[in-house]
């Protein structure tokens, strides 16, 4: 970690030896398992730790999407098309009483657009743990409780739109919550699949070498020199129109996982190549361990952390791919909701200029991609506890 100048003498041994560190600390380091060392190093990487928390936060949203949403994401209403976001007013005078103002929509006679005006005289109180539409919490327990809501939210007399509405008058906040669920799980499932491909093919390539290695390496090179998006667009466009949301979801996942396995395979192969010659692997083979045992008991655990880091770095590409495909209208199709589907409404610059909040779904995309990148970088550095 210290600067290169510590090695004051190019002749070799750095000037600080183990003796320089307190002996107690030493013993702790010598007996620590690789996971402990990785964790200790990771902890020092502040940005990565914060990013890790952001990622965990996003996956909590995935679990609690229906609790955090307060309106049915598919309930549309032409009367409230493209309504701007409402802000919560926390105080009424000096009294804590969160509320939003009621909004009235009128059609502008010149532009024929709906124009919305807030009516400060009509306050709609915001309730916590309010009643709303019914859903199953974690897919199990039926409930109607939501984090926030307004009285009469169920019959639509009083409404709240934290992030405004889209063209069809659907609540953007609630749709964003559900979109997060789909966009983040599609990435996770996709990365699992490419991880499987990557480990199997990269492992074959690195462990056996020879012909298998050559063939797999050439395939990877070919895949990397093809502009992928047009190809995946073609494949995605060919999905039958009559497929259900679930079928399309899995088909898209498979298509984008075909995109990301090459990098993982490269990492796995590299690890296998270095480990193959390591003493502990050679001795495992010499004492007669079966090939499977050598691979899974001796080799894989020693580069597990590398795989985790590479996987984390592969996730953003997955999320972006899904978003891009859906944005083009070739990925998930409404009524499915994902970040890409939401951004589809922002394709037209004239619409966005009038209703800039339609671009808001881009914010979670950017935050999540950045968080995964920082987290992955931190994990990758930490994965090499004996490294620089």
């Amino acid at each position, binding site marked *: 970690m210290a600067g*290169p100048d510590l090695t004051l003498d*190019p002749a070799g041994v750095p000037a600080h030896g183990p003796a320089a560190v307190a002996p107690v600390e030493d013993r702790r380091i010598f007996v620590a398992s690789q996971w402990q060392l990785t964790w200790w190093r990771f902890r020092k990487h502040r940005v990565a730790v914060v990013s890790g928390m952001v990622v965990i936060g996003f996956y909590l949203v995935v679990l609690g999407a229906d609790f955090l949403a307060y309106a049915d994401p598919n309930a549309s209403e032409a009367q409230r098309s493209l309504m701007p976001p409402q802000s919560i007013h926390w105080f009424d005078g000096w009294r804590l009483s969160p509320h939003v103002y009621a909004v009235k929509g009128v059609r502008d006679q010149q532009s024929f657009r709906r124009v919305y005006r807030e009516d400060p005289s009509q306050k709609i109180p915001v309730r916590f743990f309010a009643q709303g539409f019914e859903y199953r919490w974690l897919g199990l327990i039926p409930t109607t409780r939501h984090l926030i809501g307004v009285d009469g939210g169920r019959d639509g007399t009083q409404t709240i739109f934290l992030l405004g509405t889209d063209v069809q008058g659907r609540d953007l906040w609630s749709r964003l919550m559900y979109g997060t669920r789909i966009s983040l799980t599609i990435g996770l499932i996709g990365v699992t699949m490419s991880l499987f491909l990557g480990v199997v093919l990269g492992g074959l390539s690195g462990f056996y070498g020879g012909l298998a290695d050559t063939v797999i390496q*050439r395939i990877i*090179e*070919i895949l*990397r*020199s*093809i*502009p*992928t*998006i*047009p*190809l995946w*667009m*073609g*494949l995605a*466009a*060919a999905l*039958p129109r009559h497929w259900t949301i679930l079928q399309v979801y899995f088909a898209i996942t498979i298509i984008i996982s075909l995109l990301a396995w090459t990098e993982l395979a490269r990492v796995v192969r590299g690890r296998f190549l270095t480990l193959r010659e390591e003493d502990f692997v050679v001795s495992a083979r010499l004492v007669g361990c079966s090939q499977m045992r050598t691979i899974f008991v001796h080799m894989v655990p020693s580069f597990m952390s590398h795989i985790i880091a590479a996987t984390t770095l592969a996730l*953003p590409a997955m999320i*972006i791919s899904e*978003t*891009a495909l859906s*944005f*083009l*209208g*070739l990925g998930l199709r409404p009524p499915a909701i994902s970040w890409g589907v939401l*951004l589809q409404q*922002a*394709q037209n*610059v*004239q619409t*966005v*200029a009038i209703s*800039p909040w339609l*671009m808001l779904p*881009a914010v979670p*995309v*950017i935050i999540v*991609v*950045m968080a995964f*990148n920082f987290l992955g970088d931190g994990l990758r550095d930490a994965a090499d506890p004996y490294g620089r």
Partner: protein
Amino acid sequence: MLAYIGRRALLAVFTVWAISVLAFVIIQLPPGDYVTSYIAQMAASGSVVSEEEADNLRIQYGLGRPIYVQYYKWVKLFAEGNFGMSMEWKRPVTEVIGDRLWLTMVVAVSALLLTWVLALPIGIYSAVRQYSLGDYAATFVGFIGLAVPNFLLALVLLYLGFTLFNANTGGLFSVELQDAPWSMAKAWDLLKHLPIPALILGLAGTAQQVRIMRANLLDELRKPYVVTARSKGLTEGRVILKYPVRLALNPFASTIGYTLPYIVSGSIIVSLVLGLPTVGPLLLRALIAQDMFLAGTIVLLLGVMTVIGTLVSDILLVWIDPRIRLEDS
């Protein structure tokens, strides 16, 4: 050296073959064969395809014969420059694509050049002045470039241009020159419109290349040959440019080959947002309308051009790295 180039060329041929198979698969995926859908399309628009014409088409594409024969016939026609008819436009695919393919390559190559032109000096600066303000700024912009998908970047830029300057930042030509024949004025107009799409497309790649260049150069700067060069009495600028930068260039150049496919991929979506007259919007429309000959042709042509571009950058790499040149001597 010849062996190396030969190997790369062989791989390029394989890649083109793989792309052609995939493009063929894309053409074949929709239900029904081409001629049947062609007749149906024509009928829907009120024109009639004669039985004779339909039979000719069937024979030309080997329909009803085994799939590999169909593939062979298609590739053969393709190689002759006959890309088939676009169903939606009812014109030959060649005519429909027109200038768009070249404009796609112009946009992609200028993005690639911009990537080089920006990444090289910024990467060198970041490494030589490690932890300086400029280094931090470059790192920060780099992270944004990596994290923001380019079509979102295009969207934001378009929105800002629209609201702040009330100007349309999209497109490759001014409105009045859009349909004009090629002239010096039009070429100049294109040049003026290029920087924004090139920047949007190149930003992610630039960010990545800056990171690679910075890391490589930091490694190289610690090597003893740098001390040797300094001890000769060379100026610091010459020491850095002649030696460590030269070596850091090698891994840099080998990754840049993969940047072109990436940029071409990105250009499809970005063109859509920015309204660029490239093959991107055409491909999307063809795919949605299931105009498969048009779509397949675009996919294959894009693939072929990318492979050629990558091959060129591979050969450049040989020129840069003498160690590859020596490999088989």
